[in-house]
């Protein structure tokens, strides 16, 4: 079938980004928005906007019934869930089937297989991948016992989630109760699933992921992304391909990701995340994200595909248009996430109204944003204002262009982490490439020490 009208059940920059591809493909767009977003850029760009409830996301963007009702009322043939919110929610996918609306994403069974992080670990093992030591915990006592077994420090993670929500690092038993309480609350608020699991915390690993695309039968990979620049498990900078890893390791990761997805007969766009121990040239399966990801544009930059277009094509029931050999990579891409947070005051969230927004423009520069002068940044949702994506001929070129592009960006009215990115791009260790997940914390600490 050919889709003519799609409902976008999301907000912010990803809603705008999905609308733009739909417009290019001649597909009508219906935006399902909360009361806080009725005047957002997405609402202005969409052909139709339907209010699905109050600002609080549990009553709107996480409300399956409201989203389905909006799709049915607007006669949309499909729902694009974006990332976060209901993007990997089995209830939404099942309700779509029931309402005869296409869910632009994997099947209910596949969402279950990877959305439940414990099941995903089991599937990884079945596909021959290694996972990080850990398992489910149902109580404080179980968590403590497992932690003693695998060794402190540990990471508490949400069984139902990703994106750092509900994730807490715990160094010893005394901090376990408070961390589990907060993790449970975050997990419930973000994923409507309070279950937790525990993994050994690996402090000096790199976070490298592989983009995959499947049609239910064939699976191809679209290369690696390095997402090691993180703070509190929130990615801040990503690059593609992952720099400074051996080509053997890269190819092994490609193959492992494809094997995992093929084992599930995966249909749709997905990302297989690995924790890479570079000292040992080894990698461990972390999880699979069964949705489009925030950092997808860097993959688009190096492989030249529009991943939302591919998502739609696969959802329409088409076979992959590309064989692995057709996918050619060129250059290097970096993404900086521009967030409304005061990075010099412990990244304190900074909701408000944007008074001024100037973005860099030119060859190799892409700005994905929903922000313009006058835009509201509500306190109800995450702090992402936009993503600056630079495509260079090589990493050095991309870094240089990123530095210039950041200098040309100006956002006033809310605090942003713009200056942090500019300083980061000038940092020697980062410029050398291949830093691990502990790097950003160190960088921020050193900076604070110098300032003191």
């Amino acid at each position, binding site marked *: 079938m050919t889709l003519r009208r799609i409902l976008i059940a999301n907000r912010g920059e990803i809603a705008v980004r999905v609308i733009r591809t739909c417009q290019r493909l001649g597909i009508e767009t219906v935006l399902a928005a909360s009361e806080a977003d009725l005047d957002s850029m997405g609402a*202005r760009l969409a052909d139709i*906007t339907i209010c699905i409830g109050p600002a609080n996301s549990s009553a709107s963007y996480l409300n399956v019934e409201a989203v389905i009702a909006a799709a049915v009322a607007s006669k949309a043939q499909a729902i694009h869930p974006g990332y976060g919110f209901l993007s990997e929610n089995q209830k939404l996918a099942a309700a779509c089937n029931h309402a005869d609306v296409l869910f632009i994403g994997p099947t209910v069974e596949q969402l279950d297989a990877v959305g439940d992080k414990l099941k995903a670990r089991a599937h990884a093992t079945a596909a021959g991948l290694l996972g990080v030591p850990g398992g489910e915990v149902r109580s404080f006592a179980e968590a403590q016992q497992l932690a003693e077994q695998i060794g402190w420090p540990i990471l508490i993670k949400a069984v139902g989630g990703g994106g750092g929500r509900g994730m807490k690092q715990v160094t010893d038993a005394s901090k376990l109760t408070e961390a589990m309480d907060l993790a449970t609350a975050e997990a419930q608020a973000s994923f409507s699933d309070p279950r937790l699991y525990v993994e050994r915390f690996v402090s000096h690993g790199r976070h490298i992921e592989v983009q995959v695309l499947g049609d239910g039968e064939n699976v191809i990979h679209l290369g690696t992304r390095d997402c090691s620049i993180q703070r509190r498990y929130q990615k801040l900078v990503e690059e593609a391909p992952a720099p400074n890893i051996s080509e053997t390791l890269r190819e092994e990761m490609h193959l492992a990701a494809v094997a995992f997805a093929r084992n599930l007969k995966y249909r749709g766009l997905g990302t297989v995340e690995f924790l890479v121990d570079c000292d040992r040239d080894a990698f461990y399966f972390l999880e699979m994200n069964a949705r489009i990801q925030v950092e997808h544009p860097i993959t688009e930059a190096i492989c030249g595909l529009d991943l939302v277009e591919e998502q739609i094509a696969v959802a329409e029931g088409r076979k992959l248009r590309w064989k692995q050999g057709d996918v050619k990579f060129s250059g290097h891409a970096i993404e900086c996430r521009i967030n409304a947070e005061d990075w010099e005051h412990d990244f304190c969230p900074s909701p408000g109204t944007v008074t001024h927004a100037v973005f860099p423009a030119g060859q190799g520069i892409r700005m994905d944003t929903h922000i313009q002068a006058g835009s509201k940044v509500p306190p109800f949702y995450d702090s992402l204002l936009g993503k600056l994506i630079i495509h260079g001929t090589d990493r050095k070129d991309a870094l240089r262009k990123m530095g210039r592009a950041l200098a040309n960006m*100006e956002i006033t009215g809310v605090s942003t982490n713009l200056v942090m990115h500019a300083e980061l791009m000038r940092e020697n260790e980062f410029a050398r490439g291949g830093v691990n997940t502990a790097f950003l914390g160190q960088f921020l600490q050193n900076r604070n020490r110098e300032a003191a």
Partner: protein
Amino acid sequence: MKLTNEDVQQILQLLDATKYDELHLETERFKLTLRRNPASGDWTQETQVLWAPNVVQASPHASAVLNSAASGAAKAPRDPRDVVWTDVRAHLPGTFYRAPKPGALPFVEIGSQVETDTVVGIIETMKLMNAVHAETCGEVVEICCDNAQFAEKDAVLMRIKPGAA
């Protein structure tokens, strides 16, 4: 007409070959300003999507939300004899939760004894859960914000009568 990133790129390529440093383009639908920095030669863009949203269905929840916000604001007029009570305020705007998870017992109730570092609630701002600490030793005497209610920055969440806990 819809303006894409590719359109902007092409306009820039055309402009690059000219002596012009600024372009203003305004339609009913959008406003675009392109500027060239004379020193670096780098371009910047400012866009405004002007089209009014085509909202087809008003939410039945709207009035409920407004009402609850109004009643929250009208709550707890301050009594002069209360000045010895200490306010626990929201450091950030966000949703206030009195319990660690749905269905769980609240962190504190009226009459609870608290220490400075006692967690008395959670504020959810931009999807992050921040623990609210009592910051005062004493007894909780008033809870001013209901569970799952939105609290503005610096809103009083509860009040504590200072004293040895």
